[in-house]
């Protein structure tokens, strides 16, 4: 059973979220039409692990880029321009581009991994959350807690409260 509370005002919404959090409702989702730093703080989100993916990607790309340039020129030796076969300066440019390419790709991967998206199956949602409503969703509340959560949401000034069946 999930409880949805939708708010017209940011401050009410944040107040409700804080209250819920401090009263022990941990499975909380805070939906907002725009990023809210306070909401992220309430959820205890600080540094995102995405950054590790970026770093890993960049390192992987750098190594892969340089290795690719060196290895491909060694498997089939074709001298050009009187240069050495392993010509470091131009290979560094390849390395640079590959660093960025894999940095970006891994960051993308990290985004999907950390955010849990794509998630196409139905989740409690209000379309107005994409427009101008701030929505608090309390999930996994025990049957006896539902009323309490609902009270907190109502007291904070929600203009709509809904119950949604959670599908597993």
């Amino acid at each position, binding site marked *: 059973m999930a409880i949805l509370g939708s708010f017209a005002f940011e401050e009410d919404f944040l107040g409700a979220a804080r209250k819920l959090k401090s009263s022990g409702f941990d499975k909380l989702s805070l939906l907002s039409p725009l990023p809210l730093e306070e909401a992220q703080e309430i959820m205890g989100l600080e540094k995102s692990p995405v950054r590790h993916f970026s770093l890993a990607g960049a390192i992987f790309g750098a190594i892969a880029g340089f290795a690719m340039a060196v290895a491909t020129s060694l498997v089939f030796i074709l*001298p*050009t*321009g009187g240069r*050495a076969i*392993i010509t*470091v300066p131009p290979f560094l440019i390849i390395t640079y581009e590959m660093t960025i390419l894999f940095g970006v790709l891994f960051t993308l991967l990290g985004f999907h991994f950390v955010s849990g998206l794509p998630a196409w199956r139905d989740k409690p949602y209000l379309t107005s959350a994409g427009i101008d409503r701030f929505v608090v969703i309390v999930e996994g509340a025990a049957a006896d807690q539902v009323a309490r959560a609902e009270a907190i949401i109502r007291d904070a000034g929600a203009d709509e409260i809904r119950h949604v069946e959670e599908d597993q």
Partner: protein
Amino acid sequence: MSTFVEKLRQYSKPGYYDEFDYHWTMTIDLDRCTGCEACVVACQAENNLPIVGEERFAQSREIKWIRIERYWEGEYPNIKMGFIPMLCQHCDDAPCETACPVYATYHNQDGLNTQIYNRCIGTRTCAVYCPYEVRYFNWFTYTWDEPLEQQLNPDVSVREKGVMEKCTFCIQRIRIAKDNAKDDDRRRVRDGEVVPACVQSCPTEAMLFGNSKDPEAKVSKMMKNTRGYTVLEELNTTPSIVYLKKVHA
């Protein structure tokens, strides 16, 4: 493992191909050159160069692997005409080679700058990078009217549109000479065994061709001539063609 490291070390310094057997070189004596263009015709016959026709010639889209450049010296009436046969210099440090993204042009073990027509994708970067402008692009696919296709050299491929080409030092003749040498159980081709078409046809014997790694070769001796110079030396392309010209003070 140690061979791998050795290989790495070997390949990370330039000039590791010094040890190869051949370094084909040409000398051109400008004091002998009369500008008769026999070499131009010979090359065109030997290497299946297309005849582009008047209109395309006017658009400067002709294909001449060797061309005679004409320069005037002095003021009328004390005027002199000079000729420079210009062909691919087979630079040791060829700027054209590094430019190719697909290795369509590279340096082979004979010190030749080769062009692989099949591999060429036609970026034309090599032609921009070549300071001597000796690379010619196939702007169109050229055909030979009957019965002219009968005179095509079977040892040389015919190029299609979109491919770069240039002087090969008559690589097909070098190939044959090397094969002959191998059949005779010789390690090296003898001096004078390879004669490119242009050299062969030169009536004044202004051109000489040979392996400059062989100190006894005629060409090696000629290279040491005090009249020798290379074109655009300041660009450090290290050409394989040495021109000889007496400088009049």
